[in-house]
């Protein structure tokens, strides 16, 4: 027997937009991984912090973001992430896709489609 628990559904929904969130945050400011985690945790987008790292690596591999080493509050230099031009392009597409998705869902929910 399987049952659909709401936490699972929520986490599944978040999954798709996590990368979108990361790019959005970096679009506002360059950031350390730790501050990204803070924001995402505050927004309840992630539960376990380790989640961020595979995503950052993946996006870096895709050329969507880059990092430089900067002194951190804790002392040793840490990766300071910023969004690339390619990342900005993708972000723009994601923005419009997101708007479209929200509209579509609204329409579906209000039974106007």
């Amino acid at each position: 027997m399987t049952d659909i628990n709401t936490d699972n559904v929520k986490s599944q929904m978040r999954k798709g937009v996590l990368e979108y969130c990361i790019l959005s945050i970096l679009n506002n400011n360059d950031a350390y991984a730790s501050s990204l985690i803070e924001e995402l945790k505050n927004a309840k987008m992630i539960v376990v912090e380790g989640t961020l790292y595979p995503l950052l690596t993946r996006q870096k591999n895709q050329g969507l973001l880059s990092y430089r080493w900067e002194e951190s509050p804790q002392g040793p230099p840490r990766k300071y992430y910023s969004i690339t031009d390619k990342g900005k392009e993708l972000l723009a597409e994601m923005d419009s896709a997101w708007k479209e998705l929200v509209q579509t869902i609204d329409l579906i929910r209000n039974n106007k489609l």
Partner: protein
Amino acid sequence: MKKVVKVSIGNIAFTIEEDGYLVLKGYLEELNDHYRAKQNGNEIIEGIEERMSELFIEKAGKDAMVTLPVVKEVIGILGRPDDIDQEADSATGSYSSASAQQSSAPKRVYRDPDHKMIGGVCSGLASYFNIDIAIVRIIFLVLLFFSAIPHLFIPPFVNLHFFGGSFITIVYIILWIAIPEAKTMEQKFAMRGQKPDLSNIQRNVENGMNNMGRNIRSAGRNSAPVLNDFFRVIVKIIAIFFIIFSVSGILMLSFMFLGAEIFKGFIPLDILDYVQLGINSTIWLKISALAFFFLPLIGMLYGGIQMLFDFKKSKFRPGLIIVILWIISGFAAATLSVKAARPYFQQGREVSDVPMLSKSDTIYIKLASATAMPQTKVMMEGDESDMTLFWVDESGADRKFVAFPKVRIVRQSGDEARSLNLRTQAFAYTSGEAMIKAQKNLPAFELTDSLLTIHPDVYNKTNKWDGTNKTIALYIPDSVKVIVQEPLKFAFDTNMRIHSGWDWCWGNEDDWNMNHRRNWNWNRGWYHDSDND
């Protein structure tokens, strides 16, 4: 005193209690095992280690001892590889091994109501075995065909069943009853061995919506509407072709089977009632044969109309009903035909010679019939000095077919003895029966001097035609002239030729003018003048 271990994590030195260190070591090894093989996996591990150092400082203070509870708490915050993957993995993810396991569930077989043709058995099995539905359906159809074969090809000893292919049909019905239908979302996922989590739902929705999405996307571009219109036009053209083809087909078949009156009030299909068959009633043979020929055309007409006007599919699924009826009628027609042909499985022959004593240089043939030959609608088979005469007597209440034996003239040299050679070919279920039938059924004739009177066989609905054919061959010298005295007034001499083949002949009396008749080309239907021949 507790043992402590000094380690460097994220380029910061920490002092950790030994039990905490062991747990931490296990966690780091787990991470290492999981990410080492991935692309830039070490970066992920480094990142997590860095974050770990930050968390240790936050939880325990910069130079304090890291205890087991802190280690456990930090590991809980960072998450184990499986947790991380579950959260981080999106559709494009490459770290999916764990999530793939997560979203699989025990497979169960269900009938699939969303892709069903009949009961959803084939589609359900296809889902269960993860193969194309078409393959399962083809397997079922092949089995259907093969389970009908014994009925089709081993007729003599097996009593034919009305419907072959019953075996697989029964199997199908049993499966239909036994396998539950996937009604809920959960069951539909279990049918494919998936858990109903969001990524699976998403994947299925994506697959299902692919085409729609493509259409929406392409509609935005300039070239797309043209392409869409183009396809719509193609569909309409195909629809119109379907309609024209099916309507003309239906008209043609109607004419062939039902419309063309060969004789007054007599349609071709009725011939079955005058032929001896291995079945008692021809009604089912007629119905199944008509259904077999007409149903595809009716289905095509329906499909064409639906494509042309784009109306909603009916709940009753007429297309499916037509296909099922067509398959049933095909098997019924095939099995009934084989059964009907049983009286023709074996043939027997009888030959008998009768000497002709007359030395006359002319032989007269009289075709003796109780009823007069009609002026029209006579069927005749002609050959070089070889003819069959056949007509339909519609004078009485019951229609009768009057068929004379074939008359053949075999020329021989003058010194050889003249003779009449009688032959009968008969058909029956066994050779013995056929031979006895042939022996009892030699051509009926009377020979008095130079006059040969030949009697016809008369067939009607009770005395049905059974394939028996008879020949009277006249072995006579070249010099002897043969005159068919009555009713044809037809003369054979050495130069006479009637062309081979047979033809339906109908027309008015002028066409049957006695002067012309002997030069009628039976095969091609034109006259020619014998003087110029």
